[in-house]
């Protein structure tokens, strides 16, 4: 077993250029592959096409088809073989083309990826990354817009993260690939084309930390991935109502950064969580429970959830009715009896 590792030196930061989140992810893969030859990338259409979202664009031309290749069309096969490669010392980064197409791999992920380290008492860990383009608002047809994060987040043994912007996308993907634990790396599709000026390589906060992305004093709004933007919009609009809204980008669902969230909630005494997934049994329930358990006597009102409806993801022409909007967030905040505070 000769898992050689090559490290490139220094790597001076480039001048800032406008980069989309897809571009930042592409750069993260490129840099990780250049630095460590144990990193291999495969999945459906990731080769010459560069992925249906172009996240792997140009990588096969640069690294050849022994480092990045198109696999047969079989998600369980992709994850299952990645397990074997990781056992042998590689660091596979595999792509599930869309969230709902990760379900054939469900068994491999929950039965093996999540448990291998545990059942082998730490002798075999699986440093693999499963990239899953997730969530909706892209006008996709059925099965192209699911939010499956709570399935993964409720599985011990997995790390589940979701960036919301290009800088985090780069930094968190690099960290995920370097992690000795398996990472479910969820990429909000509706943010793929979000741009920011970036000088690479960029290192933002560690991926297990939540970040306060806007300070406020009356309410803590907790979002992740696609709903961070919604939360920020709502915070802007709330100014007109005389409300000062603090916004937290969770970034990591598992582990959960209780510290950052609780500190904010103790300051504002009110919390609401926003996600696209259905409410019932969704990740917001975990957020609400954790916030309440830790901060009950600091809370002036029940923790609210602003989420998608408890329905299968709707067709493109109807998704706007389903997705949580800034208006819905404001309406929810208005439902609290503010004079009680």
């Amino acid at each position, binding site marked *: 077993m000769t898992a050689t590792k090559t490290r490139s030196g220094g790597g001076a930061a480039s001048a800032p250029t406008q980069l989309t989140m897809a571009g930042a992810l592409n750069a993260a893969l490129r840099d990780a592959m250049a630095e460590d030859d144990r990193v*291999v990338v495969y999945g459906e259409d990731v080769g010459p096409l560069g992925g249906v979202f172009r996240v792997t664009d140009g990588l096969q031309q640069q690294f050849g088809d022994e480092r990045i290749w198109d696999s*047969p069309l079989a998600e369980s*096969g992709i994850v299952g073989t990645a*397990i074997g490669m*990781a*056992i042998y010392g590689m660091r596979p980064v595999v792509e599930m083309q869309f969230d709902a197409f990760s379900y054939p791999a469900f*068994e491999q992920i929950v039965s093996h990826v999540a448990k291998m380290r545990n059942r082998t008492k730490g*002798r075999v860990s699986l440093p693999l990354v499963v990239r899953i383009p997730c969530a909706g608002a892209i006008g996709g047809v059925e099965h192209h817009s699911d939010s499956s994060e709570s399935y993964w987040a409720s599985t011990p043994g997995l790390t589940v993260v979701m960036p919301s912007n290009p800088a985090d996308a780069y930094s968190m993907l690099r960290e995920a690939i370097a*992690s000795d634990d398996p990472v479910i790396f969820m990429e909000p599709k509706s943010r793929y084309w979000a741009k920011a000026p970036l000088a690479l390589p960029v290192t933002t906060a560690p991926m297990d930390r939540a970040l306060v992305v806007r300070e406020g004093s009356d309410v803590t709004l907790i979002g992740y991935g696609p709903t961070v933007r919604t939360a920020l919009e709502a915070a802007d609009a709330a100014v007109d109502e005389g409300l000062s809204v603090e916004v937290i980008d969770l970034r990591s669902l598992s*582990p959960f950064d209780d510290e950052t969230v609780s500190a904010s909630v103790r300051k504002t005494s009110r919390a609401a969580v926003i996600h696209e997934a259905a409410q019932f049994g969704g990740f917001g329930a975990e957020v609400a429970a954790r916030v309440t358990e830790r901060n009950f006597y600091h809370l002036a009102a029940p923790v609210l959830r602003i989420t998608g409806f408890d329905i299968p993801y709707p067709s493109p022409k109807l998704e706007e009715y389903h997705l949580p909007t800034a208006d819905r967030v404001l309406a929810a905040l208005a439902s609290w009896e503010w004079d009680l505070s």
Partner: protein
Amino acid sequence: MSLNVEHDAARRALPSEKPLRLLDNAGHAVTGAATGGFSLPGTETLLDLYRKMVVARRFDVQVTALTKQGRLATYPSAYGQEACEIGAVSAITADDWLFPTYRESVALLTRGIDPGDILKSFRGDWHSGYDQRAHRTSTQTTPLATQALHAVGLAHAARLRHDPIVALTFMGDGATSEGDAHEAFNFAAVWQTPTVFIVQNNQFAISVPLSRQTHAATLADKAVGYGMPGFHVDGNDVAAVYAVTRAAVDRARAGGGPTLIEGLTYRIEAHTNSDDPTRYRHARDVEHWKRRDPIERLEKYLVSEGALTEATRSEITDAAEALATHTREVITAEAELDPLELFDHVYANPRAALLEQRARLEAELAEAAAESR
């Protein structure tokens, strides 16, 4: 009518329905077409296989007895399947990797893994009891056919690293119906990985007979559709299983890609101790297969060749008894379990929330210990 003609033509490309064998049930060396061009391994190899099978049989009988005494939570017996497991696993080297299922305890024994470690999971101590990397043997996998994909992935990684490693994986006849079996066969063939698939066709998946699992004439037929060689082998003929697996392993190592081998055998015992086989199969079938015992067959051959002396026979019996004694000792010994270890191997980087939960259990344990004092 024409449909049948085409079907017959297609069948000619398929593995023989008559299982390939090198020793018949009476222990006579087979000649002619039935050998498929493979030749009988040398006497030294056969003696070694015989020794491993006798020891493994004794181990299996001992473990079944211990299970009946309530010492093990469950045990999937390999009684009657020794030729298939030992023949195949003896064809790989210590550097190669093995991806077993729950049924392959005797294959693990042949890998040099201690009985106590093999049985840790069945005793209920931990999900897996041995050092996977040291033995190059993955965990005994329960979700059916999933491990076949791990074998393909590992073999592919080894090839990318230019390491001449072969990955051997087992699955049962029932498991071939799972999607992961098909994905593994296909990935292996498309990527041309050095993987050897052994399908142990013991004719039942718990209670479900092979006829409810496939309409194909043999399970080896499956190989054809994926573009790899398939062999239908008498799984009670250790010489044939060894020779065919050995050829497949050599071919894989030389860059020739994967092979699918079906060993036709029979599960003499129940599926596990909690199964009642009288509900789904006839005693006469079990008797029929007992008369095709893989160990007796090889023994007859070795005796007729004058290769199995009384001295060797008693030396092997002693070794088998010693192993049975060791197995009894390690299984009846009190397990040393540390409940706090529950939290130790979930993540490489310990998590605060998990450490909190660990501290809570630690406090509970301390309290319980104080109370019992």
